[in-house]
């Protein structure tokens, strides 16, 4: 599904179809998979820490 918000600071979480996996995509391009949305938001919002 395509993104809707187009700002430069958008954090995005995709729930991967047919799985329990969430894919977090930071506005800096860093990506991280998780099965816990709390953990994934913590990682996203920690930008730039750990977003190499």
């Amino acid at each position: 599904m395509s993104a809707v918000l187009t700002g430069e600071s958008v954090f995005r979480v995709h729930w991967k179809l047919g799985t329990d996996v969430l894919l977090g995509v930071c506005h800096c391009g860093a990506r991280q998979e998780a099965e816990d949305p709390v953990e994934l938001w913590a990682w996203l919002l920690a930008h730039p820490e750990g977003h190499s």
Partner: protein
Amino acid sequence: MAFVRNQWYVVAYSAEIGPELFARTVLGEPLVLWRTETGEVVALADRCVHRRYPLSRGHLDGDRLVCGYHGFTYEPDGRCSSVPGQNRIPRTARVPGYPVLEQDSFVWVWIGEADKADPAAVPRAPWLADPGYATVCGMEPLAARYELLVDNLLDLSHETYLHGGYIGTPEVASTPIVTEVDPKTEVIYVSRHMDDARCPAFYAKSTGLTGRITRWQDIEYHPPCLYLLHSRIAPVGSAQPGEEGTDPGAFHVEVVYAITPETEHSTHDFWAVARDFAQDDASVSEFLAESNRTVVLQDVAALNVLEEYLRTERPGYQELSVNIDTGGLAGRRLLAEQAQR
């Protein structure tokens, strides 16, 4: 959580405010509202400076509000212009006034620091005042903290269980979502696009569609108050929306909620449903109004129960969040940030 004070909130529908006194509490502040003879809406603190009698129990004398207890009289800007039995008007005889504006059929009020009230910051729900759409609306009192309604509306998978037979079908709970957050513009967007779903009664009876449908639910939340659900319904196999914004093969319903805290444990639950089809069909309006109110009342009943139980929980109680809560968690974070500012 503390209230988010420096934000705009819906206090009423424009149609609710006329040349009579109207009382409503927002963020714990009792307000009295009326429409002046020139048509402007006024919001003042609903307490007389004298003995705190509710000014909404008084009456209007032209554009002046006269307290129903001892006759203290106030101008629309809150200044006291008459005190009973004496000529001197004490310097402190003034009730606070609040910035208000009307937009998209709502009256918005700003409870926080008045110099921060930017009219351009009021989020839009243009369908509600668009002649191309037919709208039904209402407001239900909710005996629960507003955060519970935010949680509820940002996770529509509950439709399958709480609203089965109305708007819920199995596909809602089983279709993955995409959640987007823009911390700069403070918007949360949650998309759930069902490609091949059963048509729930809410849409079958209003659109006349009987077969399988594509059903898109796109939530756009402008915390803290305005929640928009862009709903697109079309028969399976219909053309996709055009790049220029046209979408003639689909039915569009804009479901709007304004979530306004009344007190720490109660909320004004404003709801509206605007549609771009069967605009002149009164039976469709009647059906959608009745159905949506039923759905809202199902949420109200559930959240009232939840509030009652949460108030008896020990501090620090644990919750468990799963994938369906991705949007709700984003909402909580943005609200917490707004409350800290």
